[in-house]
């Protein structure tokens, strides 16, 4: 993709400080760093979301992130590290290509990773709980069982990930918000 900055780095069309590269993933020093020592790790194949990526490569990404965090901790004298994946549309992702950010942290470094807890009513919590549980229960089923439970709506949603910008299901969302 000509537009994707990360793909340009992978194809060597753009200069980058490559720290690690194997046939599946690459780690570079970010040139738009949030903090000194900000590292980006990404798969060589262009994907927007984590779910599209092969299991083995996902594992490799996590390993590289984990060891990078250790390398930062020892090599740059960080007091802590953050590993952040902005996965999909509206996730504060900076690139159309999945990137794992590894950030070295120190106390009072100006970055705030605290969130304001949202007030959610118990009924809402229960409904959310039920919904996620239903979908998560499928995870450990075998492939055959999965095919049986796969409804048309589900299929539509999973393919939606691959379309870059699509507004969809706003009506359903609206329904879910009615108390």
């Amino acid at each position, binding site marked *: 993709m000509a537009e994707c900055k990360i793909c340009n780095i992978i194809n060597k069309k753009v200069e980058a400080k490559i720290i690690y590269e194997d046939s599946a993933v690459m780690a570079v020093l970010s040139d738009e760093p949030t903090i000194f020592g900000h590292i980006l790790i990404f798969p060589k194949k262009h994907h927007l979301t984590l779910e599209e990526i092969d299991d083995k490569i996902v594992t490799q990404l996590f390993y590289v992130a984990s060891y990078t965090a250790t390398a930062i901790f020892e090599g740059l004298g960080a*007091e802590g590290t953050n590993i952040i994946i902005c996965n999909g549309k*509206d996730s504060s992702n900076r690139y159309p290509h999945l990137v794992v950010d590894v950030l070295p942290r120190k106390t009072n470094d100006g970055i705030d*990773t605290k*969130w304001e807890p949202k007030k959610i009513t118990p009924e809402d919590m229960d409904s959310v709980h039920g919904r*996620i549980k239903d979908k*998560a229960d499928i995870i450990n089923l075998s492939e055959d069982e999965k095919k049986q439970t796969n409804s048309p709506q589900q299929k539509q949603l999973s393919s939606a990930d691959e379309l870059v910008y699509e507004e969809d*299901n706003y009506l359903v969302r609206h329904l879910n918000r009615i108390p």
Partner: protein
Amino acid sequence: MKLSPEQQKALEAQKEQCPFCKIIKGEIPSKKVFEDDKVIAILDINPANKGHLLVMPKEHYPIMPLIPPETFEYLSIKVKQLSKAVKESMLVFGTNIFIANGAAAGQQSQHFMLHIIPREENDGISMFDFEKIEIDAAKEAEAYKILSNNLPRMLKEVYKRFPLQRETAGALGNRSRTAGSSGFNAGAKIGYNKEELLKIIDMNPQLKQAIMKNPMQFRQMIPQNPQLKQLFENIDVNEIIETVSGKKMADAIDSEFDAPQADSSFEHDIRHDDKFKQIQDIIDINKQTRTADERSYPEDEENEAANDNDKQNDEDYDIFDVIDGNPKLKLLLIESPDVLKNKIEELSALKETFGDIDIDDLREQVIQRDKRRKNRQENVDEDNEKKEKSDDIEGLLG
């Protein structure tokens, strides 16, 4: 990563108190969305957004490096699947996966966990909207040098799954010198203060020796060696030397009552401590230092001998690596040194390895080292290097 007994005890105590372990056991109620025998996912009580999940291994690990590889791999796949489940159930297209290692990074719990936070446009979550800052180019270049050397070296085992594309200095694996020789790792912080420097010196007996034995020479070495220069920047060298020598008296008295510590073997242990390998190399400027890896194959040693002048000095400490990496060899050394002596005569490879070393003396040292080793923390890299070697030399011994 392995823990010392004291650390192990502290970990046990931590587990008792850990609220998440209690949730996992069922003692505290929670909204579980997924559970299997290794991993559990629950809804966060203080969510950043509706559907905020906490995913954690059932076993208590305070930090990420302590998680064993199989669990870690399993966890990464589950995170991917759970993120998909969240997207489908909450009808969002984006999630954030967030890991905080350390209090400075926002880690609030002692039980390792990942956050999966569903995201929507205008949901009010700004913590992932990072701003860009300006970085000093020189500092960046240095960080790049350090990381590009260390990271591939650390990932040696993991990159075997996917072939390496770049020959970085650190990635050369077996044949490379200690990563430290080409990069400065022990704290890339620019400028130490006195306490930190003293700590580093304490942890590096060779450095300490150098200062104590010949302070004048050491003082001269500093401006000549760029790494030493950086270490001692803005620090009064004389003060350091005084303090170090002053300490020496205390150490000398203490050591009278300790178990005999052959200095060479203590240094040897520290050599395997990643952080301080670099400092060792600074001192070994005249010695050709080699990693244990380079001594792995007797055939290689024949080549090395031809090229290497300082082999004799190195043999003494490398030999411990070879022995440790070969349990059969070790057993033979400890239980039947005479048999080993005969074997050495027979096999030229062994002869090269042991050379002129006194077997009985060596045996004593190995036994003492083992006693001390039991209490000491071991480095993962060290274990991996040994595994590689033992595969080869074990075959040789038959």
